[in-house]
């Protein structure tokens, strides 16, 4: 369970997230939608503390994962990030082989056992629905893969360290429709085992992949409810306007 309690976030004097509280159930997919600059990506990055390095950033309120405040002093950031994987907007494989890309997270977390790493690489690539396409060229550069394959490689890379949560920041926005469909299928399968929080610009995508949807605007969480309800009968007028394209 992921929980935000009265979260406020500031970039310097800019109030990026305004008093947001929401609960995200384990083993489900939650979509965050909203216009550009509404704070949904910032909100997503709070949960693996990727905003920590930004100068002038300030957080108020609590971010909890399974009841633990991830911003408490006792939280080890590297352990947190192992548990909360992230997939970025543009596929960003490392300039290494396919195998090394997936093994990377294991290696930086101190795992040296080669058999274990090899097993885990296969397992992760299989889980990311990429194994069959790459099993004969594991030592080839990751850059030889297509954009969609690269993004699935990045998902495999995140899965390799056995997280329980996957944060996805517009994971399909740089991909063609066929690759996008594959990523969406993958999310459907993965949400049985992982909690997936996905930021997306694409409303159909949110409708297709998620169980619950949160609508952000100007840093506020306007509405957060079951995806079906959100798209069929939203409560707020702003939501209605946005999902029907009458926004602004």
């Amino acid at each position, binding site marked *: 369970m992921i929980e935000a309690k009265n979260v406020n976030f500031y970039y310097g004097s800019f109030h990026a997230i305004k008093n947001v509280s929401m609960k995200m159930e384990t083993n489900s997919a939650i979509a965050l939608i909203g216009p550009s600059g509404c704070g949904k990506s910032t909100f997503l990055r709070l949960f693996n503390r*990727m905003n920590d390095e930004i100068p002038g950033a300030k957080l108020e309120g609590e971010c909890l994962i399974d009841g633990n405040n991830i911003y408490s002093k006792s939280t080890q950031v590297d352990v947190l*990030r*192992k548990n909360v*994987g992230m997939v970025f907007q543009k596929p*960003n494989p490392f*300039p290494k082989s396919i195998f090394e890309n997936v093994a990377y*997270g294991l290696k930086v977390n101190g795992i040296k056992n080669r058999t274990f790493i090899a097993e885990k690489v296969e397992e992760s690539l299989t889980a990311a629905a990429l194994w069959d396409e790459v099993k004969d060229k594991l030592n080839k*550069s990751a850059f030889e893969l297509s954009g969609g394959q690269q993004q699935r490689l990045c998902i495999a*890379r995140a899965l390799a360290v056995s997280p329980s949560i996957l944060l996805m920041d517009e994971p399909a926005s740089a991909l063609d429709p066929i690759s996008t469909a594959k990523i969406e299928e993958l999310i459907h399968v993965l949400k049985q085992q992982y909690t997936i929080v996905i930021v997306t610009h694409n409303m159909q995508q949110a409708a297709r992949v998620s169980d619950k949807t949160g609508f952000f605007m100007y840093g506020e969480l306007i509405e957060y409810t079951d995806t079906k309800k959100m798209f069929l009968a939203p409560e707020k007028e702003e939501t209605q306007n946005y999902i029907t394209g009458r926004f602004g």
Partner: protein
Amino acid sequence: MIQTKKIKEQIAFSVFRLLGFMVLGVLLWILGFIIYNGIGVISWEFIFSAPTDGMTGGGIFPAIVGTFYLIIGSTLFAFPLGIMSAIYTVEYAKNNWLTKFIRIMTNNLASIPSIVFGLFGMTLFVNTLGFGDSILAGSLTLGLLILPVVIRTTEEALKAVPKTYRLGSTALGANKIQTIKRVVLPAAFPNIITGLILSIGRVSGETAPILFTVAAYFLPQLPHSIFDQAMALPYHLYVLATSGTDIEAARPMAYGTALVLIVIVLLMNTLAGIIKKRFEKNK
């Protein structure tokens, strides 16, 4: 209207092309001149024996070896130091006045005349630290000379590594030093090699910094340790051209030395280029 635009473009390109060929022509002329005058003395004996007969006979082997030692010594000193400095300023240091000051000073260091490095090296390494005229003192002096180049090119190489690599690595639980060691440096490596190439050219060609710190006028035997003096190609060339016993007779030897120096630099550059290619392939 369109016609004049086209003509203007053609004139511009013709001028550019002409200038380009002029530069190339000058380069080829110099190279051809040296090859033409120097090729006559090139032989196994010239490359593998010491000078004889008051520099008018024999070869330049000690100078070749000396130059190799200086290339290796100075890069061994300057590269680790320069790369670490660049990592600090790019990856760790905050972008404040101090970092800016360091960057400005690094650039200034690059524009100091090499003779000043020679004098500084003599004062510090030869006299104060007591290394004497030695390969060690010469390498350190040359190392200081190329340090700004190394820092500069490494900084640029590190900055050219996409931020998304760093984010991807951080998101997998890697800390900063792991990210730098495992992702950033390997990705930056081909461009760092460019710095190595520039430095090798610089080190093998500089005369002023080695004048007071290492270079020997004439040493028939090879150096035994890093505390020995050594001959070096650029200084040997200078000696042959200005202060031999019979300058006219030594003239062909001078051209031969210049040719060997150029070939060594070309070979080292090619080698570095191959290494660079190999690493780029892995991308």
